[in-house]
């Protein structure tokens, strides 16, 4: 969570500087800067995820060195999951919390002609992002562990795609549906990477031992 926060900080710093240095009246430029800010932020988030991976790697080495039986009490997969959840929670919290606070107060949604589904779609979008961050954490760490660069690239590309799709808002079908599809794909992939399989799933669902 902290790492996500720092990445957000740095990316907003960049965006802020860019905005201050540019002409506030030029709409297209502002929009362009926003797009640039968003993309840059995504890249920075992934960079910080990588840094966090490096840090956890060092920590695991320390834990292994100190432990009695040569293996660390927390595996790298667990750490990947936790890292993903941390990123997701922080990103979700930052996206939603002001919305929730405003939702408690009086008002009408979409009174100025915006979409009336604003809160609902925001909630769904945030949820899909939290899930995605979790899965991306697992995929990313797995890719780093096994030196599969294409996995890492896939995560980055997916993240960019989801963020880019959110530019379709308020055309929600363009942003929510593909995001959920991507999430399902990422979920399946992460599940397979974590050692799950169709058989495990069947056994779990049918409550067999």
């Amino acid at each position, binding site marked *: 969570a902290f790492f996500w926060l720092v990445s957000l900080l740095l990316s*907003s710093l960049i*965006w*802020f500087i860019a905005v201050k240095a540019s002409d506030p009246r030029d709409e297209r430029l502002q929009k362009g800067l*926003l797009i640039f800010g968003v993309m840059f932020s995504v890249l920075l*988030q992934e960079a910080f995820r990588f840094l966090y991976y490096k840090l956890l790697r060092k920590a695991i080495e320390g834990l292994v060195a*100190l432990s009695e039986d040569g293996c660390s009490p927390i595996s790298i997969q667990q750490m990947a999951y936790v890292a993903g959840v941390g990123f997701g929670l922080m990103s979700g919290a930052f996206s939603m919390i002001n919305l929730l*606070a405003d939702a408690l107060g009086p008002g009408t949604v979409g009174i100025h002609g915006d979409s009336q589904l604003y809160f609902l779609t925001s909630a769904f979008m945030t949820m899909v992002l939290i899930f995605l961050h979790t899965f991306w954490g697992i995929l990313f760490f797995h890719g780093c562990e096994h030196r599969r660069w294409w996995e890492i690239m896939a995560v980055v590309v997916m993240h960019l795609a989801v963020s880019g799709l959110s*530019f379709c808002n308020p055309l929600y079908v363009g942003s929510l549906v593909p995001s959920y599809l991507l999430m399902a794909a990422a979920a399946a992939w992460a599940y397979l990477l974590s050692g799950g399989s169709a058989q495990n799933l069947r056994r779990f669902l049918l409550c067999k031992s």
Partner: protein
Amino acid sequence: MITFMNNSDSEEEPCNERTSLMSAESPPVPSYQDGLQASEAGEAQAHRKRRAGSSRGPNNIAGGETSGSSVPVRESALENEEEELTLKYGAKHVIMLFVPVTLCMIVVVATIKSVRFYTEKNGQLIYTPFSEDTPSVGQRLLNSVLNTIIMISVIIVMTVFLVLLYKYRCYKFIHGWLILSSLMLLFLFTYIYLGEVLKTYNVAMDYPTLFLVIWNFGAVGMICIHWKGPLQLQQAYLIMISALMALVFIKYLPEWSAWVILGAISIYDLMAVLCPKGPLRMLVETAQERNEPIFPALIYSSAMMWTVGMAKPDTAARGPSQQTWDTAENGREHHRSPSHADSQMSETRSPVPTRPVTFVEELEEEERGVKLGLGDFIFYSVLVGKAAATASGDWNTTLACFVAILIGLCLTLLLLAVFKKALPALPISITFGLIFYFSTDNLVRPFMDTLASHQLYI
């Protein structure tokens, strides 16, 4: 209200507290007896208002187990074990401290957001005489710096005074002071707080009920904190007291002064605990020399100290004198009071006659708790509360400060495990908190607002 506070002794208390994380470790001791003494001394270290405790332990345990320093080989093996244990339990300690710090912050933020009273400007404390209602920015900055200087010097004076009192064994005086402080905190501040909360939610309460509630709350609090009580209840009281004190600070410190004070106090904390001539360090060393626990008051401890007085025959004899001493120290709380260690001491005294010697080893595992000074709680909550009160980006800033403080606490505990001695708990957390507050408020907020208005996601 203001005059009251000005006159009260306890107002000065907050200034005195310093935070530091202390490792309750003492240098390795040869005999079992000494080991127990050392753990007591370590506990004493944790006393100084803001001293934050640390994981005690593996050192003391090792010291305790190695009776007679005649086995150097075992020492080194034990050292490795200690390190392992330290790191293993380190994570547990971090969690044990996260929960109370989070709870305190939640209480403060919830109150700030809902009760208008604590965000209204109704005057200032006498310790910050310069007003910030000046037209120019430079003047305002100057005033806040002057306010800070006054506040910090008051704190330094009070701390030195306390150290002198302790050095010259004026325990009764300290005792009385602490009791007065905690009385005021538990009764007066709670009364005001309850009054404001009831006003906000428009709930009527008659005076007899109010009297009954406050009386019970205060009396149980005094007993729990200064004497014996269930661990959870003590911790709850300490958290509530810290929250109340933090709220008072948030209300009565002017804006810029609050931020400068937070920065200055973390620098002061750093110096007071780490410099050889720092008052806190002198206090710790004096307590160690005398093998006495320093005021266990004003410290939040997350676990019971069972090893103290466990199988030690003399402890029973020392018991009565310790008891009076402990209660004296408890008096000081006022804002920081956590005389948790006191109650710990009292509680451990009773099992002394019945427990066999071997019991200590088993219990040593459990007693590994961490101690954090209440002043730390207070200033963390002040930072987060101020962020909640004054930031225009509202919740994002609060959340960012909260995460920053917790990460700072984590890092401090990590350093504690590495250095194994008293450490100040304020600097890292407050620095992170301040950085994140200012950057989130000014940089992240416009970015997130723009994203939210276009419903973009990053």
